[in-house]
Structure formats: structure tokens, C-alpha cells
């Protein structure tokens, strides 16, 4: 196999770490610090610890792992930092350093080894669906599930989405023709859309079809690598990147579209570190909302008939979209829908509290952040909270369920898809 390029190491960030002037601005903005209050959790402390780890002044002991695990990767500290220290990237590099020196946590290992093997995922998804009745019980009157039995790492109270009857990629051929003169768009499905939320993918297909695009859904694609990076497993992330480079490279699509804010971050920001081939691929990656807005879907939506009964919908902005400067496209699509009424929510930009594996390791803190979010949804008076990241949807739905609220979380594309379907 071709030699894999590597992600940056802590040493690559030395100069940027030196730029932290310890001013303390990050204390005002870190959601986790807001809940836990200890300096080791906030960006300034993490940079200090990363620096000490790099200089071997401190041991990569379990307490250090624990401190580095307490990061949502929301990037708010980076946006507010007077010297723009990339603390989110430094935290991931520190996790890789700790894993390299100490080995991975059981959770990180089992999750990433699963995500590394798409075929195994397919197989397991099939049997897991059959086993679901034994393992899970339905949350009354909700679409979600809760565990019947205690399981390691997953809180029994957490509500989880049900597995799709058929994974999204199995439902469709690899190539779906549109109009011959239109571009070829490759769809990056992401694991959550494929196995848990195929309705998001269906919405995307309807929207892309409405613009006449040709769509390729490469069969050999895999996970974007973000969960592996989050667990400090740079090797798996690099292998996944190589797989996706092969899967998407061979089709030469005009653009590669992501349906998930985190996948977008995985295939752009984190891909670029790996070398020129990856960078070239990353250049062609575009978030679905951004693509649809730039290609004029707003006008198509505006021409749909007005609905008589319009549900009130509010928007949550995923951190990974905002960090890429993409807060507006999802809102524009919703504003153009004649089937809903868009309402404002306080702190729409605040992190939902999922943070990938964060919510697994630190469910209580995650739940507190989610509770604030659920309350904001309630106060907005919305019936639905729409967002552009399946991870956020899972967390928002759990937060709403925990607060015993009737509102539902969904993807912008589900609403777009429904509106387009009513037309046809």
C-alpha cells in the first residue's frame, strides 16, 4: 500500500502554542469550562498541558487523557482568541500523541476499528437491527430508542436513533442520471446518514434532482475519519482518508457534497494536512446547503405552493459549519421554504454538547449543555429544530427527550425533500 501521509504532530504546532499569551479570554467562551470550571479544561490550560507534553515535562497519564478528552471541538475558543491559537487542532494532536505513547482507550479502539471497516458495518447493521428488539426499547411516543440493559460507555437514559431498515447506500445505484449538461456530484453519505438517518440522504437526492444534477454515490467510500481523529487514532484516520481518496478520485466528480457538518470538516480541514492529492480532493468538497444555495435552489423552493398549515421551525447552527463560515446557507434554504415558518432561537450558535465521543465520555456535562439548548428550542416556540449535522440531530433529540419536550430535531434537507415531494 502507498505510504500514508500523516496528520500534524504536536511539534508541528509548537510555534502556534507559543502564541498563547495566557490572557484568559477563552474562559469566557468554552462551554465545557462553563460547566466544570477547572483551568485544565479551558483552552489556556490545554495549551499549557500540550506544551508540557511536547517538552516531556509531564507524563501522558490517565488524568492528562481525561483533561484532553474534555473538548467539544466546537472551536469557539479559537474564534475568540486574540492570537487565534488553533486549540481545537492542538487538542487532537495531543490526543494522538497520548494514544501513540500510551495506547488507546477501549472505546476509541472499538469505535474506530468498526468505522474503519465499512463492510463489517453493513453486516453489523443488519444483525443489529434484528437484535434491536432485544437490546433496545422504544421511547414512548418518540422515534428514538433507549437501551434495555446497562452497556459500557453509553448512558441508559440516552435516547438513540433507530437503525435504518436498509442503509442508504444499499437503496440506490452508484450512478443516478440527471440532465446530461449538468455537473456530476458525488455524494459523501457519512456513516450516520447511511445507517441511522437515510431520510437526510433521500432529501439530498430530491434536492439535487430538482437542479438536474447527475449523482454518483461511490460504493467504496468510508467514514470521513473524524471519529478516529477525535479518539486520537491518526493511523485509522489516515487509512480512511486514503480509502476515500481512492473511492472519490476514480469518479472524477465535479464536486463532492457532504450532508453533515462534521464530515465536511473531516474532508476539508483535516484532509488538507495529508498532502497535495488530499488537498486537491478537499478543494472539491462542498457542504450540501452551500451547494444548493449557490446553484439557485432557493428560487425553486420559493416557487412551490404555499402550505396552509406551516409548522414553526427554528435553526441550530452546527459548530463545524460555522467554523467553515457556512452558517447562512441552511438558514437561507429554510427561509425560502413556503411550507414552514422560520422562527428565531436564542443562542442558536451555542454548541449542542455532543462533541463526538465527548458525550459518551462525559454524558452529564453533555446533557447539561443539551438541556440549555432544549430550553432555547422551547422558548423559541418552534415545533421543529432543524440543523445540518446528523450528530447535532441525535444530541438535540436526546436533549428534547430528556426535557420531555414534544419538539423534534431534523435536518434542513428533510424539510427541503418533503417540500419538493409535495410538488411532484
Amino acid at each position, binding site marked *: 500500500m502507498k505510504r500514508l501521509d500523516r496528520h500534524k504532530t504536536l511539534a508541528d504546532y509548537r510555534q502556534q502554542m507559543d*502564541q498563547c*499569551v*495566557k*490572557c*484568559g*479570554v477563552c*474562559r*469566557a467562551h468554552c462551554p465545557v469550562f462553563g460547566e466544570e*470550571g*477547572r*483551568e*485544565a479544561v479551558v483552552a489556556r*490550560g490545554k495549551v*499549557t*498541558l500540550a506544551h*508540557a507534553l511536547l517538552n516531556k*515535562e*509531564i*507524563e501522558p497519564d490517565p*488524568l*492528562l487523557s481525561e*483533561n484532553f478528552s474534555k473538548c467539544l471541538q466546537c472551536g469557539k475558543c479559537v474564534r475568540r482568541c*486574540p*492570537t*487565534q491559537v488553533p486549540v481545537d487542532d492542538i487538542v487532537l494532536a495531543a490526543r494522538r500523541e497520548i494514544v501513540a505513547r500510551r495506547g488507546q482507550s477501549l472505546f476509541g479502539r472499538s469505535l474506530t476499528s468498526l468505522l474503519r471497516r465499512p463492510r463489517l458495518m453493513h453486516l453489523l447493521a443488519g444483525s443489529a437491527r434484528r437484535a434491536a428488539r432485544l437490546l433496545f426499547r422504544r421511547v414512548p411516543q418518540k422515534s428514538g430508542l433507549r437501551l434495555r440493559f446497562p452497556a459500557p460507555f453509553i448512558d441508559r437514559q440516552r435516547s438513540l436513533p433507530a437503525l435504518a431498515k436498509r442503509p442508504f447506500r444499499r437503496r440506490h445505484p452508484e450512478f443516478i442520471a440527471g440532465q446530461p449538461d449538468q455537473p456530476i456530484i458525488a455524494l459523501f453519505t457519512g456513516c450516520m446518514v447511511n445507517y441511522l438517518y437515510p431520510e437526510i440522504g433521500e432529501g439530498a437526492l430530491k434536492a439535487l434532482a430538482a437542479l438536474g444534477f447527475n449523482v454518483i454515490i461511490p460504493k467504496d467510500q468510508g467514514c470521513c475519519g473524524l471519529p478516529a481523529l477525535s479518539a486520537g487514532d491518526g493511523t485509522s484516520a489516515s487509512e480512511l482518508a486514503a480509502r476515500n481518496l481512492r473511492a472519490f478520485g476514480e469518479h472524477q466528480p465535479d464536486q463532492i457534497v457532504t450532508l453533515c457538518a462534521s464530515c465536511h470538516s473531516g474532508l476539508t480541514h483535516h484532509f488538507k494536512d495529508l498532502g497535495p492529492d488530499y488537498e486537491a480532493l478537499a478543494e472539491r468538497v462542498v457542504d450540501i446547503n452551500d451547494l444548493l444555495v449557490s446553484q439557485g435552489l432557493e428560487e425553486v423552493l420559493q416557487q412551490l405552493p404555499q402550505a396552509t398549515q406551516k409548522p414553526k421551525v427554528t435553526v441550530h447552527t452546527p459548530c463545524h459549519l460555522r467554523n467553515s463560515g457556512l452558517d447562512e446557507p441552511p438558514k437561507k434554504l429554510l427561509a425560502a421554504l413556503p411550507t414552514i415558518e422560520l422562527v428565531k432561537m436564542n443562542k442558536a450558535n451555542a454548541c449542542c454538547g455532543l462533541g463526538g465521543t465527548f458525550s459518551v465520555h462525559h454524558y452529564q456535562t453533555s446533557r447539561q449543555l443539551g438541556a440549555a439548548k432544549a430550553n432555547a428550542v422551547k422558548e423559541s416556540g418552534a415545533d421543529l429544530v432543524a440543523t445540518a449535522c446528523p450528530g447535532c440531530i441525535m444530541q438535540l433529540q436526546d436533549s428534547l427527550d430528556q426535557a420531555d419536550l414534544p419538539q423534534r430535531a431534523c435536518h434542513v434537507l428533510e424539510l427541503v425533500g418533503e417540500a419538493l415531494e409535495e410538488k411532484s
Partner: protein
Amino acid sequence: MLENRIIRIIEGIVGEQHVSTADTDRLCYSYDATQRQHRPDAVVWPSNAKEISLLLKMANAEGIPVYPRGAGSGFTGGSLPIHGGLALVLTRLDAILRIDEENLIAEVEPGVVTRQLQKAVEALGLFYPPDPASLKFSTLGGNVAECAGGPRCVKYGVTKDYVLGLEVVTPQGDIIRTGGETMKGVVGYDLTKLLVGSEGTLGVITKIILKLLPLPAAKKTMLVLFDSIDGAAQAVAAIIGGKIIPTTLEFMDGTTIDCVRRNTDLELPQAARAVLIIEVDGDSALIEKQAETILKLVNPLGVVNTWVAANSEESEAIWQVRRSVSPSMRKVNPDKFNEDICVPRSRLPEMIRTIEAISDKLQIPIVNFGHAGDGNIHVNIMVDTAEPGQEQKAKQAIEEIFAATLKLGGTMSGEHGVGVTKAPYIPMELDPAAVAYMKAIKKALDPNNILNPGKIFLQD
């Protein structure tokens, strides 16, 4: 390092989970905004005055230094544990205990973040004016210990003007109350004033009673560009001579304007060599009139351009110019020596000219901005310490700037305090008898030198 026996005692006082000797925690409480590092032997997070009292009694018995600490955002090293011992983190004492709308007071614990109190009182139509630049993350305990200032103090004064009373744990572990809840009170020595600004050397603050004001109905922000620093300084004199005290009178010198030029939507022409940001607050009809008068007063003084904010967004755009100063400065040079001298406001142009001369002579960039209304200048000596000789030059500049400040009747710290960074320069400002007087107070109250040792005064 502390013996295990001592750690067991501390665990007994605060609970096992609220004390740590782990390297990660010792590192994370080793620094503040000075970027110097001194690791404590242990970090303690007490939750009330009783626990702090027991900790200080134990520290006295065992001879262990105790370093109280809020957010660790100080610029002079006031909370650095330079002799090890205990870092006493006060952020768990974070309750706003009450807001009394009838008597216009608030009672808070020291770990409350300044902005959090402001939001709480503003929701009731009240106002807590002190607004240090760090208000979104610094704690009220730290503000009181250092007597923090901010842009609004031209009109409203600094932290000490709002502290009516305190609950304090003395260095030997007694819990006392100073001052009270009344606007007047003259029984005994004014210990409240002694403790405000004492930099955590005379007691640990555990409760604060603060004076509040009614929230001004409206405010108006203006940005005026001048062709020289003299024009800006004369403008300050003209406004105050015109019997108007604005809420803020912030200035930036030419070097600062050069730094921020690319970071703002407002056009800052090359001809502009000084900027004043002027804000007035109060009744809306009154402030319109005040703004007009101010512009009339300053117009003949070499004004290049003027913006008057029509709404809060435009006001925000003006303040953004001021806020972009700190992040822009690193483009000049990577390392910053940040001093906060204060001179009588009429001497401001002379002071700036002296600093410019020092900058030229030593060939190092110095960026000046600050609170013109009260003569408080943030002097930022920008160097690259990686280059040989630069750090030495910066030190020489600091010494020469302090000497010039004192010659003009000023002080070497307007709002950052002495801590460790300014301790070597104390003899320049205070005469030996005054230093002896201060040391006698410290010695009487803290005979074992347990509380925040090594601060303000150089070691004997």
C-alpha cells in the same frame, strides 16, 4: 513538596475532590497573563469562608505559603505562586448572594465573573460601572484585590469607589467584616479601602458588598481622528473644561492606528495620528446635546474625520476599532511588555512625546493607547526576545518610562497593580518611610508571611 500528612489535612477541610497535587493541575495554576510560570505544590478549591479560615490556620501552623487566585488574568503576577505552597482558587465561591433594589447594593462572592454581575443588575435597570477589559472572564474578587479600572472610570471611578464592605479571612484565619451596607460609615479605620488593591497580601476576600447606580437610559459613541496627539490631548482638556464628563475618553496613538488599520471597516487615513473614542451616557435628549457640544469643542483642534454612531451597531463598529488593538499588536513584534502608567491628564501629550523619544533612541516600537480621560496609558513595548539584546532594551525602556512618568507627577500603575513585575521599581515611586509603613502593616497582620508572599515588595 507538601507532605502527605498536610494533604490529608487539606482533604479533611475541603473534601478529597477539591484538592490536587497532580502535575496537570499544578501546571494549570502556575501562570497568569504575565506568562511567567511558578508551580504551586497543591491546588485547593475551597467553597466557603470557613474552609478558607481552616486552611489559613493550618498554613500558619505549618509555614505554608497561600496564593489566592481568581481567573488568573492579572498582568503583574499578583496570583503567581512564586514560593510554591497552595494555589487557593476562589472560583467556586461564585454566587450573587443578593441584589437589593431599594438600597442599590449587591452582595457577591469573589468568584463571580464581573460581566455576570453586570448582566444581572442591568436586567433590573441597575448599573455596576467598573469595566476592566477582562470583564467577561475576570472575577470580582480579583477586581477588588487589584482595584481594577476600565474605560468608564473618567465618569464613574474605579472598583474601590463601589466597594462598601467586605467579608475577609485574615492571614491568621479569622473571619472579619469591614465596612457595611451603608453609603456612610466612619467607625474605626477604613479597612475596606486598605484591603481593596492590597493584591491578596492582607486577607482573602470571601464576600463583597458593592454599590450600584441606576442604569443610564442611553449612550452615544463617537470616534474622532486628529492629526496629532496634541490635538487629541487638547480635546480632552477642552471637553472637561467645557464642563462635560464623558463616560469614556479612550485614545490611541499613531503607532496603534497603524496596527489596527487593516482590521476595521472604518477608514483610518494616514493623516490621522491620534484617535479619541468618546462616549456619553444618560438621558437621550441630554446626550444628543452633549455630543453636539463635544464636537463643537474639539473641531478646531486638528480633526481629520469624525464618526458619530447612529445606533448600537455603529457604536459596536467603533468599539471594534479599540478592541482590535491587542490582537493586532503582535504583528509589530512577538513579545510585549505591557505597562499601565498614569499621569495627570494635562501631561498626556508630554508623556507620549517622551515615550516616542525613548522608542526612537532605543530603536524599539512602542504602542500607546488607553484611557485619556484619566491619563492612564497602556504602554506596550514590542520586542522579539529571541533576538539578542532586545529584552535588555525593553527593560531599559521601562525604567526610563517610569522615571519620566514620576517626573510628570504620575504613577507606574493605574490599574494593574505591583505584583511581581513592578516590585523592583517600587523604590522609584515610594519613599523608604512609606514602604516601611506598608511593610509594618503586612508584618502586623501576617507575621508568618503566609499570604501571597513575595508580592508588591521585593524580598528582604
